């Protein structure tokens, strides 16, 4: 019991342990709900809900009615869970705090400007979500959920993601890559 308490208080777990447990979560999603884990899908549903209140005509299209309906779906609730899970993880290791900038390595690469960080976080988020739309899912919804079913789509996505991720990191860091 004490050892379990100690484990929960640790800030960092072995990525093997955390990853294996994530595999179990992926299994349970299929076993209990016949659903795939996926973070990006929920954003589509929420964007539809918000869009329909602002511009009902534009968001009354086929996509937000049928493909990814503007509604509180399983995926939206999953997102709410992830938010609480992140909070719980940080609280358990007493590392929860408000902060507006990422870790020191960001500052070494991009400087201390908060406007720059927030601009890139916004732009990056939009790019990630649009890309997930093209690919048919994100790191959780396609790479992990598709990969565990042995869908070729997942491995194509992972290959693309690492190829361009490595290139982008190299461009950002150049001499310090």
């Amino acid at each position: 019991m004490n050892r379990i308490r100690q484990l929960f208080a640790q800030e960092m777990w072995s990525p093997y342990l955390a990853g294996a447990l994530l595999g179990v979560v992926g299994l349970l999603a299929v076993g209990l709900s016949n659903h795939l884990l996926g973070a990006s899908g929920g954003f589509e549903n929420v964007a539809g809900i918000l869009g329909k209140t602002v511009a009902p005509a534009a968001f009354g299209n086929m996509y937000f009615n049928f493909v990814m309906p503007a509604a509180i779906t399983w995926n939206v609730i999953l997102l709410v869970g992830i938010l609480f899970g992140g909070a719980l993880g940080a609280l358990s290791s007493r590392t929860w705090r408000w902060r507006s900038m990422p870790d020191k390595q960001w500052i070494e690469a991009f400087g201390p400007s908060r406007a720059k960080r927030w601009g890139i976080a916004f732009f990056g988020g939009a790019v990630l979500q649009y890309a997930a739309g093209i690919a048919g899912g994100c790191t959780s919804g396609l790479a992990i959920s598709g990969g565990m079913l042995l869908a070729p789509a997942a491995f194509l996505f992972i290959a693309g993601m690492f190829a361009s991720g490595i290139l982008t990191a190299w461009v950002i860091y150049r001499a310090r890559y």
Partner: protein
Amino acid sequence: MSNLWIALVLGVVFGFLLNKAGLTKYHKIVNVFRLTDMAVLKFMMSGLAVAMIGLYAMRGLGWITFPVIPATYVAGNLVGGLVFGVGMALAGFCPGTCVAGAGEGRLDYLIPGLLGFLTGAAVWGLTYESVFPQISRLAAYGNVTLGQMWNVNPWLLITVFTVMAVLLFYLIDRGLIRKDRLSSTE
């Protein structure tokens, strides 16, 4: 209804694990692409191996049926992955880790990050009908698995994947990874 409780509980565990693996930190995501910290790869590959074995075993025992397999349309899966990698290396998060990081009190994830995802989602939904039908037709194989596509036993593929993962983990932990030249890697 009970289905949504399952989603909530699984989401909490998912977010908790992303936090404990450190994947809600900018440097952990970027450094997998700099090949100096392979935590993301270790996390993904061990998750995949466990889930593959479990899923195919449970189906073999007749306990579960598979959900709809994510569709393979080579050009879209690959191009989507290529664009996704740019966003991930720039921002230092992906959709799931951004939400978990927002829960940790990271305001750059909570405010511009989540607004970025919602914006991307809105733009995607509004352009879907002119983009998706075209791209999803290129080299489309439908909702297949590798086993079906290549007509091989899935357990052979699972064995190959697991052996490759273990070998890769062994090599990484033996020091086959680039030395970091930055002064602060956190």
